[in-house]
């Protein structure tokens, strides 16, 4: 039999001004099942809580209703008080007679009656509450970081430095990402490689970090604290333990003219290659699609020249499974190429290039060793047109968003061009200038005032080639849409940042959400920018949306901190407001008929299939089972279930129907 205690709070004058608390307490004492009903000035205060604790012990209460403010305010407070008195905290409910009663109605009989109604509803509910216990889930204290760009590197270092193991998986032969391709970074014009390589080395040498380069995450299963990741280590065709990184193989390889990915197609590399001199690991890989041996069975020249005899043509991809407790996704972004722009030549003009390609031309380790040369004829460009917003902010091209970094790097490119070619002319066609970071606007001003870059506010409608020059047809809208035609030697398009290749497939294999541009979705745009809706998987860097280096690093450290928080506990404790599918004795086992509508409706993949078998292994039926580690307690499955086999602890059918019935009794 129930023995419910009702505690009506005055909350000073907040409730008492419009609700007759004394009358409420007296009336509630008469509700069947209520054995104790009092009112008090401040229930949340120490003496107030004491009142509850003592009543629980003296009156042997089986349930408590505190009629006061919103449960969103003080439910944890009163649940803790009950726990301290030995009553399971989930046997305590709050009746909201302040925010949803006393504060919104005038002093009247109706208001007092409403308070009574609210309390009696919750008494009916709490009579049917069951004792619930927090769910414990073990945690594997190893993190998986997917992506070895600056965000992945930062996250890996932070997690490793907090004492936990990290596995860093990178798709390319080397870590470093796009930051390794940059020549200088805004707003300081710091040499990108100089600030990045020490971190790359730290990752390689850190005792807590295991680096798998030229590898991909093939699948991820499990749940927070308990993931299993399958990693494909692609065959490099090199025995890394023997290879010294001397580079003799690269000199020996006869197939030298493959377009270099690192140089964005502007330079070449051999079929066996280290992508750039500061690569980590500094070991080559063989591009099996271009290597003569793999295509025709002949050559193997590198093998003969290798002093360490480290070439292994028979190497195969390796699949390894690892157990991790958390995942940080830092897979970065890509930029659209020049062929995306019909109005700029469909990519056929060699001297119309993207910002990233220009970056490689500027770079001292680039295809022209830092000398600015036109890809078409190697001459020095004397006039460059930079086009900002190439593709971005353009719904007609399907890219409505702003790519965030282009205004800054365009200013940087124009400045660096002027530093290299002081007698050259730089024109920037822009729509707006977005320079909102620290030192950013000053940087753009510098380009305009010190380096005399010409900024023209207008768009470019066409580029075509004539007599070896590129005719750039734009407009100057600050002069009233005056047409502007520039005969440029080179055009640099600040092309839109887009999701990296394979983003959609990766998101699907990890079960994280993504938007219609294949950028990964954060749990809440304002308050939870580094978490996903999948518990235990976090985001860092440009894979979530285009962003610059400081923001990527910040996000990476934030994600690392979330991982550290997760790992700081021995076990994960979760609220037991989870769904449960009934189980009963044979021959029924469960009223679940195995339709699995719940499984398809669950946004968190928390429902699994369970096979019920006889002792000798014969299958009786397959029913649904909720994973309490994943279930978030929304109850969608409960409402869906046609056989009413699933219920939500804390908001069970019994409780909820009792509330409704009581309301109109």
């Amino acid at each position, binding site marked *: 039999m129930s023995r419910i205690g009702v505690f009506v709070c005055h909350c000073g004058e907040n409730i008492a001004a419009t609700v007759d608390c004394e009358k409420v307490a007296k009336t509630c004492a008469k509700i069947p099942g209520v054995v104790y009903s009092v009112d008090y000035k401040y229930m949340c205060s120490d003496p107030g809580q004491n009142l509850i604790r003592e009543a629980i012990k003296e009156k042997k209460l089986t349930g408590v209703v505190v009629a006061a403010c919103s449960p969103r305010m003080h439910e944890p407070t009163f649940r803790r008080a009950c726990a301290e008195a030995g009553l399971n905290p989930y046997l305590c409910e709050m009746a909201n007679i302040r925010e949803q009663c006393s504060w919104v109605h005038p002093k009247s009989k109706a208001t007092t009656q409403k308070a009574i109604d609210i309390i009696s509803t919750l008494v009916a509910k709490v009579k049917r509450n069951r004792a619930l216990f927090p769910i414990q889930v073990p945690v594997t204290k190893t993190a998986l970081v997917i992506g070895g760009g600056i965000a992945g590197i930062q996250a890996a270092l932070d997690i490793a430095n907090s004492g936990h193991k990290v596995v860093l998986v990178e798709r390319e032969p080397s870590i470093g990402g796009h930051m390794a391709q940059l020549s200088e970074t805004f707003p300081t014009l710091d040499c990108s490689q100089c600030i990045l390589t020490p971190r790359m080395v730290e990752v390689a040498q850190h005792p807590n970090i295991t680096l798998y380069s030229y590898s991909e995450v093939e699948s991820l299963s499990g749940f927070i604290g308990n993931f299993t990741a399958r990693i494909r280590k692609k065959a490099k065709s090199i025995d890394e333990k023997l290879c010294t990184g001397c580079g003799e193989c690269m000199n020996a390889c006869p197939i030298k003219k493959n377009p270099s990915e690192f140089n964005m197609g502007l330079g070449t590399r051999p079929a066996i290659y280290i992508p750039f001199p500061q690569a980590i690991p500094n070991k080559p890989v063989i591009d099996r699609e271009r290597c003569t041996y793999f295509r025709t069975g002949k050559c193997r020249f590198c093998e003969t020249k290798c002093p360490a005899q480290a070439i292994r043509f028979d190497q195969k991809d390796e699949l390894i499974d690892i157990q991790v407790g958390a995942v940080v996704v830092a897979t970065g972004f890509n930029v659209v190429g020049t062929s995306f722009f*019909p*109005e700029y*030549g*469909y990519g*056929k003009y060699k001297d119309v290039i993207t910002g990233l390609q220009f970056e490689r031309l500027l770079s001292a380790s680039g295809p022209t060793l830092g000398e600015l040369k036109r890809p078409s004829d190697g001459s020095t460009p004397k006039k460059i047109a930079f086009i900002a917003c190439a593709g971005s902010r353009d719904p007609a091209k399907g890219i409505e968003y702003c790519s965030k970094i282009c205004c800054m790097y365009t200013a940087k490119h124009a400045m660096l061009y002027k530093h290299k070619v002081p007698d050259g002319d730089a024109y920037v066609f822009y729509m707006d200038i977005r320079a909102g970071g620290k030192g950013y606007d000053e940087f753009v001003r510098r380009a305009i005032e010190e380096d005399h870059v010409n900024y023209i506010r207008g768009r470019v409608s*066409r580029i*075509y*080639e*004539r*007599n070896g020059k590129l*005719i750039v047809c734009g407009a100057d809208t600050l002069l009233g849409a005056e047409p502007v035609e520039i005969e440029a030697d080179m055009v640099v398009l600040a092309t839109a940042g887009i999701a990296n290749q394979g983003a959609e497939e990766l998101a699907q294999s990890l079960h994280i959400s993504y938007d219609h541009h294949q950028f990964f979705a954060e749990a809440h745009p304002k308050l939870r920018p580094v978490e996903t809706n999948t518990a235990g998987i976090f985001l860092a860097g440009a894979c979530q949306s285009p962003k610059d280096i400081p923001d990527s690093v910040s996000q990476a450290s934030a994600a690392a901190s979330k991982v550290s928080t997760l790992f700081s506990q021995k076990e994960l404790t979760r609220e037991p407001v989870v769904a449960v599918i009934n189980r009963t004795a044979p021959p029924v086992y469960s009223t679940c008929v195995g339709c699995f509508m719940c499984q398809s409706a669950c946004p968190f993949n928390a429902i699994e299939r369970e096979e019920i078998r006889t002792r000798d292994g014969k299958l009786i039926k397959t029913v649904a089972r909720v994973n309490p580690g994943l279930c978030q307690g929304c109850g969608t499955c409960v409402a869906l279930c046609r056989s009413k086999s699933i219920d939500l602890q804390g908001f069970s059918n019994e409780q909820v129907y009792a509330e409704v019935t009581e309301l109109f009794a």
Partner: protein
Amino acid sequence: MKVGLYHGCSLEASSREYLESLRAIAPALKLELEEVQNWNCCGASSAHAMDHILALSLPAETLAQAEQQSMKEVLVPCAACYGRLAATKAELAENQTLKQQISERIEMPYAGSTEILTILDILDKVLTADVVKSFPQKFSHKVVCYYGCLLVRPPKITKAQRVEDPLMMEDILKRIGAQPLDWGMKTECCGASFSITRTDLVGMMSGKIIEDAILRGAEAIIVACPMCQSNLDMRRQAIEKAMGKRYSIPVLFITQAIGLALGLDSSALGLKRHFVPVSLLENQEAKAVATGKSS
């Protein structure tokens, strides 16, 4: 291949050489052209600016006629007529109420089932390797192809590939042995219907086109639209006045180029009707560029 033919007014009047050359080459291309009976004006010059219903009714009536005459496909050589017919077909396909309304207005059933083809669509289909084999000579000249506006725009209706840099005409010309050159004015405006009201503007805009063609070393400009041909050819005086130079580069319809490869003579192809004399260097190895010499 048998298709319906809707050639509209220009091909009977100021651009009659387009129709003449088309009819002249049709037998060699095994193309049977059946004119749509009772066709009417497509309204390209002004209807669409005056009254939306009228603008839809005029092409719809011609299309309805084609349907009644059981024509599955209709060739529309004039790009302007094509633009109007295609736009009408697209709009009525989207809007059933409007379709009903127009059908009532023209007092004819309209199903929208006829396929509308440009000259380039047809030539692409019929100018196969087999057919070209029998051509007596090659049209081995350097040319630039001018598309003007209506052959590729609006992209959603014409479904053109490579709207900014189309290659359909070049492809067809290569088949007859021509050397199409890349140039910057493929789809730039010639001044269009300002031909009558502001001929000076046409002079400037078409002038730019002529200049670029000559710069690239073209011997002729190939077009597939009567308006384009008019502005670049008939308005040559206005162009020369605006640009202060003389230009002798001829402007040929694509059907005339094919006719020359077929060895047909200039009167059959209506070449004598042009304002700018068509005097292509017959020497197949000629590399000289026809520059602005006084003609």
